[in-house]
C-alpha cells in the first residue's frame, strides 16, 4: 500500500522525514494477465482502476505506447459537463459527473475538479430552440441545467460581449452549474496511482503492435516489449482506435481528425466560468494558473500528426474575440493538437466486438474527457462480466447496422 496523501504526510515529507512512494511505479510486463488494457489515457487507466476496485480483477496491465496521459487526456481543454441531449448520452455523462464529484477523495489524489459552471451560448433563434430542448431534457433526466438570457449572462460574465450588433449576437445560453473543469494530467496520474496501488501494472513505452486472435478469440498482444497474453483485451486507444482494430482484423466507424487547442500567457483571474460556443467554434476557460485555455474546432481531414492547420486556430482566436473583445492584446503562448476519433453520431462505442474477449471503447471524439470516470467504470463492468453495463448498452457498435444511432449532433443548423 502506498502512503496516503494528506497534510500530515506533506508535513513529514517537507521536514525530510518521509520519502514519497512512486505514484507510477516502473514495472516490467508479466507474460500473462487476466485483462490487458491498450492505451494509458484517462479512459484506459480508469478502466483498469475500476476493474481492480469494483470488479475484483487486479491482474491487469495497462499498456501505453508513450507516457500515460500523453494522448488526448493530456491535451484537452478539460471541460466537464453532463447536459447532453439524448437520454442515453445524458445518463452516461451524468453517471460520470457523479463520479467526478467524489473522484479526488476516491483516488486520494486532487484532480482539481472545479465546478465553476459551463455556459453553452446560443446565437440564433434555432440555437435557442435547441438550448430549450436540451435543457428541458436535462431537467427531466435529473441533470441540473437552466436557460439563461443575455442579460443574466452579462451579469455573471461582465466581460462578455452581449452587443446586439455583434456578428454572432449572444441571445442566451444553457448553464450547468455543476459543470466545470479538472486538471487533465492529474486525472491520468490519479487513476494510475490508485490503480497501481490496487495491483495494476502500468507499463509505459510499450506499444501494442499486434493482437493475437485464434479461432475468433483473443489470445494476447504483441508489443515493443514482447508478447503478453490475456483472454480479455480492452482497447481504449482513442485517436489510434482504427489502427488497433486493424490488428485484430476489424474496421471501425470512426475517423481520426486533428483537434487543436491553445493557451494564453497567464494573467490574474478574470474569467471565472467556462464559456462555449459551437456556432463560432470556440470555447474558453481560465485555468488556476491564470492562462486562458481555448479549444478550437476540428480539421476536416484525417490525421495522426497531433497538429492541425493555422486557419482553424486563427478562426478560433477571432471567435474568442467576438465573445471577449478585451482579449485582443492577450497573447497565445502555446498551441497544440490532439487526434480525436470521431463517430458518425458523435457518440462513443463501448462494446464487445466480433472477436471474443476483445472490447472497444472509442469514438469519444472531441468530448470524452468529461466521461473519463464514467467511461472507465462502465467499460470495466462490460469487460468483467462480458456483458455490457446497462448504461453502455445503447453504445453497442451494432447500432451502426441496426440504425439505432444516438445522434448527439442534433440539428445541423436550421435551414429555411
Amino acid at each position, binding site marked *: 500500500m502506498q502512503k496516503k496523501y494528506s497534510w500530515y504526510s*506533506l508535513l513529514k515529507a*517537507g521536514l525530510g522525514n518521509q520519502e514519497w512512494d512512486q505514484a507510477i511505479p516502473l514495472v516490467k510486463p508479466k507474460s500473462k494477465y487476466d485483462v490487458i488494457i491498450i492505451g494509458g489515457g484517462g479512459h484506459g487507466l480508469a478502466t483498469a482502476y475500476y476493474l481492480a476496485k469494483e470488479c475484483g480483477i487486479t491482474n491487469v496491465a495497462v499498456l501505453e505506447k508513450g507516457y500515460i496521459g500523453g494522448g488526448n487526456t493530456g491535451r484537452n481543454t478539460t471541460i466537464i459537463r453532463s447536459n447532453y441531449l439524448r437520454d442515453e448520452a445524458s445518463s452516461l455523462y451524468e453517471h460520470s459527473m457523479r463520479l467526478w464529484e467524489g473522484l479526488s477523495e476516491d483516488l486520494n489524489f486532487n484532480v482539481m475538479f472545479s465546478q465553476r459552471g459551463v455556459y453553452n451560448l446560443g446565437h440564433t433563434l434555432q440555437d*435557442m430552440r435547441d438550448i430549450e430542448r436540451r435543457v428541458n431534457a436535462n431537467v427531466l433526466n435529473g441533470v441540473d441545467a437552466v436557460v439563461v438570457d443575455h442579460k443574466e449572462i452579462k451579469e455573471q460574465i461582465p466581460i462578455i460581449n452581449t452587443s446586439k450588433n455583434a456578428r454572432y449576437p449572444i441571445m442566451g445560453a444553457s448553464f450547468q452549474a455543476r459543470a466545470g473543469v479538472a486538471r487533465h*494530467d492529474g486525472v491520468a496520474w490519479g487513476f494510475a496511482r490508485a490503480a497501481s496501488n490496487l495491483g495494476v501494472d502500468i507499463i509505459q513505452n510499450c506499444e501494442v503492435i499486434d493482437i493475437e486472435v485464434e479461432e475468433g478469440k483473443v489470445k494476447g498482444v504483441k508489443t515493443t516489449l514482447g508478447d503478453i497474453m490475456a483472454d480479455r483485451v480492452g482497447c481504449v486507444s482513442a485517436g489510434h482506435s482504427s489502427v488497433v482494430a486493424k490488428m485484430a482484423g476489424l474496421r471501425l466507424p470512426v475517423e481520426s481528425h486533428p483537434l487543436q487547442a491553445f493557451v494564453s500567457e497567464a494573467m490574474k483571474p478574470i474569467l471565472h466560468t467556462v464559456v462555449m460556443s459551437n456556432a463560432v467554434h470556440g470555447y474558453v476557460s481560465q485555468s488556476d494558473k*491564470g492562462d486562458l485555455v481555448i479549444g478550437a474546432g476540428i480539421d476536416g481531414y484525417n490525421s495522426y500528426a497531433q497538429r492541425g492547420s493555422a486557419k482553424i486556430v486563427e478562426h478560433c482566436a477571432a471567435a474568442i474575440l467576438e465573445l471577449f473583445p478585451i482579449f485582443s492584446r492577450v497573447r*497565445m503562448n502555446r498551441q497544440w493538437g490532439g487526434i480525436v476519433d470521431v463517430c458518425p453520431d458523435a457518440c462513443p462505442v463501448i462494446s464487445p466486438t466480433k472477436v471474443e474477449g476483445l472490447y472497444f471503447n472509442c469514438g469519444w471524439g472531441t468530448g470524452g474527457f468529461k466521461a473519463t470516470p464514467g467511461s472507465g467504470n462502465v467499460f470495466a463492468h462490460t469487460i468483467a462480466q462480458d456483458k455490457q453495463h446497462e448504461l453502455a448498452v445503447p453504445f453497442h457498435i451494432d447500432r451502426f447496422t441496426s440504425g439505432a444511432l444516438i445522434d448527439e449532433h442534433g440539428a445541423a*443548423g436550421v435551414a429555411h
Partner: protein
Amino acid sequence: MRLKNHKSDFIDQSEALSFIFNNKSYKGYKGDTLASALIANDVLFFARSFKYGRKRGLMGSGVEEPNALVSLEIGGRYTPNLKATEVMLYDGLSAVSSSNPNSIDFRALIKPLHRFMPAGFYYKTFIKQKVWAMVEDSLRSIAGFSKAPTEKDEDVYDHIFHHTEVLVVGGGVAGITAALEVLNNSKTTRVILVDERAHLGGELFNEFQSDDTAISWHHDNLSKLLEFKNVANSRLKIFSRSTAYAWYDHNYIEVLQTNATGESLISGVTQAARKVLHKIRAKEVILATGAHERPMLFETNDLANIMLSQSVRRYLNEFGVISGKDVVLYGNNDSIYSTAIDIKNNAINCKVIDIRPSGGESETVLKAKKLGIEVLQGYAVLKAHGTNLVKGIEISSVELQGKKWRLTGPSKRLNCDLLASSGGFNPVVHLDCHCGAKTFFDEDSQAFLPQKVRKNRQVCGSISAIGFWKDVVIDAKNKAQLILLSLGEIKKSTQDSMSKNYLDYYNASQFFVPIEILNRPKVFIDMQNDVTTLDVALAIREGYRSIEHIKRYTAMGFGTDQGKTGNINGIAVAAQFLDVPLSEVGTTTFRPAYTGVDFGAMAGREVGGFFDPQRYTTIHDSHLESGAEFEVVGQWYRPWYYPKSGEDIHQAVNRECLAVRTSLGMMDASTLGKIDVQGKDSREFLSRVYTNAWMKLAPGSCRYGLMCNEKGMIIDDGVSTCINDNHFIMTTTTGGAASVYSALEMWLQTEWSDLDVHLSSVTDQFATVAVVGPNARNLMKVLCHDIDFERDNFKFMQWRPGTVCGVQARVMRISFSGELAYEINIEANYGRYIWDEVALAGKPWNITPYGTESMHVLRAEKGYIIVGQDTDGSMTPMDVNMKWILAKDKPFSYIGRRSFSISALNSDDRFQLVGLLTKDAHVVLPEGSHIINNKGGSIGYVTSSYFSPILRRSIAMAQLKGGLSKMTEIVLVKIVQEKQGLKEIPCEVSRSVFYDIEGEKVDGNE
C-alpha cells in the same frame, strides 16, 4: 548605469525619452529597450516569480527573458505580460511590473512554507471536493502574471499573404549571408528575410568592440542587401521586428511583425496596424535563427544581477549599459571570455571562473589572460550570496572524473555585484520542430541540433552549433548554394570548408555540473515557474520519469518564455538524476508560438463585421429602410419581421399574417438556394437525389422534393422547376444551399460521371419576390401583362415566363403558406426595382411585407416542415408523415432508400412529427419543451409553436415517440419554469395541418 563615452550604433543620445516604470519617472534614449533603459537607471528588480513570489531581475536581453514581465499602458492599449527586453522605449511609455517587486507579496511572506510546497503539491492536498471548492478561488487569485485587459483594443491587425522562393529566418551573419548568396546567384528568385530584432546583425554586434572586420563586414553586406531592396519590383523583402513564430505544413510560416513604433501606437497618430501577421509560403526555408545562451546552475542562482553572459555583453555593446561594477563571469565555454574582454576594455573589474580545467586554451582565453583578467580554471560556483541581489559567490574546485564532475576542494567566497554565466548554447531549433522534425543530441557541441536532412529546408549558423562568425559566413554560403541547387538555379553547388576550430564557442566539453550542486535547494531551472533541480528529482522519484511528465509535474517550460533558457538545463538535470545520457531523455515537444502572439493579430481583420461574411439580397436596403428586424440564416440576413412604430414582435407578426391570409403580403425570398440543373440526364439525376419521382414532370411545372442522405435522414427540401426536358431549377433551403450543392456535385463527379448533367449555383443570379395572399392574382395582373394568370390556365405548381414591370421574369405559382402565391424571379440587378414596384402596385390591397417569423407561422398553420427545426438530422420521411413522397418504382435506388429498411428505422416508437393543440387555446407552448409520459420521462418535444392569428389559437408541431398512432390522444407537455415550479399542459395530438385542411385557399379569391 550607462557608460560615459560609449559609442553605440543603436542608441541615439540626442533624443532623450521619458517614461514611467512602477509609478516612477525615468529617462532613456531612443534605441533603448525598456530593459536597457532601466539598467541605465540602476533599476534592478523587475518582477516577482510565479510560485514563490521571489524578487527577480533581468536574466536575458531578448525573447529568452523569463523574469522581467511588465504590462504597458492603460485602457484600450493596456498590454499584459510583455518582456521588458522586447519593449522598445518611446516617449511617454508607462509600464508596471506584472507583480510589483517592491510591494509586499503573500507568496513571499509564506517563505517558511515553501519547503512543504514542492512540485505536485496541489495533487496531494485539498483532496476533499468541498475543501477544494472553498480554497480554489483564493489560490487562483495568487497565480497569474499581469492583470488582464479590461477594455476593447483600440488598434487593428492586418494579415498579409506572401509567396517567395526563399524565406530566411534570422538576420544575423548567417541570415544576411544566405540571403545575399541566393540573390547574387539568381535573377528571379524572391527572398524574404525576417528578424525579430530591430536591426539586422544578430549577435554580430557583440563582436564590434573586439573585431573591426566584423564592423566592416556588417556595413558592406547590409548595403548590398539594401541595393537589392531599394529597386523597383524588388525581389527582396526584409521584415524586422518580425518573428517567425510558427511553421505549419508545406512550408507555410507565420511571421508576426510589430509596427516600427512598436507597442507605442498612439491614438490618431497613425492609421497603421499595431501588428501585421505575414503569412508566408516559401518554396525553400533557410533557418538562421542562432542560439540562446543557457545559464549555469548553482544555489540561489535566481538573485537579481545574475545574468546570461551574452546578455551582459549585449547590453554593454549595443546599449552602453551595465548593471554592476564588480563582475564575475562563470561558465563552461569561451563565451564568458569574450564578454570579459569587452567588460575589461570598458575599464570595469571582472574575473572569470571557468569550470573547465586549464590547458589547451583557445585564442580567446589567451587574449583574456593577456589583458590581465583574473581567470580561475577548474572551479564551479556552488551558491550565490545575497538576499535579493547577488553580493557574492561561493566557489570550489572541480574535476572531471570519468564522465562526471566532482567537487574536489573546500569552498571559498568571492564578492561581486554582477554575475554573468554561460552554460553553453541552445540552438533555436523551435521552428524546425513545429512540423514534426526531430532534434538530435550532438556530443561535440553538447546541444540538441536540428534534424540533419529535411526537404526544402537548410539550417546555417549557430543554430547548427557554428560559433565563430567567419565560419558562419562560410556555412551560410554553403547552405544557400544547396538551396539554389534545389531551386534549379544552379547546376552544381560549391561548398567551401570551414576553419578547424569552428566549434570553439561551443567548447562546452561537458554539460553537467557536479551533482552535489544539483542536490542543493533553490537551484532554479525555470525561473518563471520556480522549478528547481529538486523538483525534477522529486518528480523522478515519484515515478514521473518521462521528460514530458517531468515538464507537466513541475511546470518546467510552461511559462511565457517556454523554457528557452531553462528547458535544456532541465533535461540535463533529469538525465543526471535518471543516470542516462541526455539523448535518451530527449526534449519536450516544440510548439508554436515561438514567442507570444496577440489574439488580435491571430484574428487579423476577421473581427466584428468581418468575422464571417454577411450576405445580403439585392433588396436589403429596402428592408433597412422599412425598419425590419433581421434574422441570421446561414450567412444571410433575412427580414425577421417589420415592426411598425410601437409594435412588438407579436403584434407585427399578427398583422403580417392576417394581411397574407386576408389580402396580400410580399416577401423577399431571394436567399433560397437555387441550383441550375442542365443536361439530358437531369431528370434521372433528380430522381436519384430526391425521394420522389421526376421522370414525368412536364415543362412548365414545379414539384416539391425531399432529399435524404445515405442514412435515410432528411437533409433538405425544396421545389424544383422544369424549364424544359433538359433543364431544371432546383431550390434548396437558405442554410442548406452550400452543403446540398457540394453533395450533389460529389455524386455527379465521383459516382455518376456518366450522367450528362451540369450543376450551377444561380442563387445570386435571381432576386425573388413572393406575392402572397388571396389578392395575389389581382396584383399580378397589374404587374405583368404577357402571362395569363387565370386560375385554370396557370395552375398551382406551374411556372410561366413573362415580363414583370418591363423586366423578363420567371413567375412560379408555388406556396409556402397555403395561400394563392406567385414568386417572381428576375435578374438580381432589378430586384430592388421590382420590390418597390410590387409594393407600389399592391397598395390598393394594402400589401404588407412580411418576414421569416410570419412565414414560419403561416407554414406551420399548414403543417409544412422546416428542415432543421422540425427535423434534426435524425428524422426520416416516414417520421414526418411523408411516406407519400417515397417513390416505389424508381429503378435506381435513390440516395437514402436502402437505409429505410434497416430495423431501427422501422420501429414503432420512433419520434414522429405530429400536431399539438393545447386544451387552453391561448397557451402557447414554449418551443423545446418536452412531452412526458406518466413516469415523467420525455417522450417527445415541441419543435414549432406559435399563436395563429387566423385560427385565434395556439398551434404546435412536435416530435412524439410513436406519435402518428396517437392521434386525438391527450398528452402532457411539461413546462420547466425555474421559479414557479413545474407545470404540465394538456394537449391533444393532432395532424400537423391546422388551417385550410382541405387546401381550398391555394387558388385564392374567385
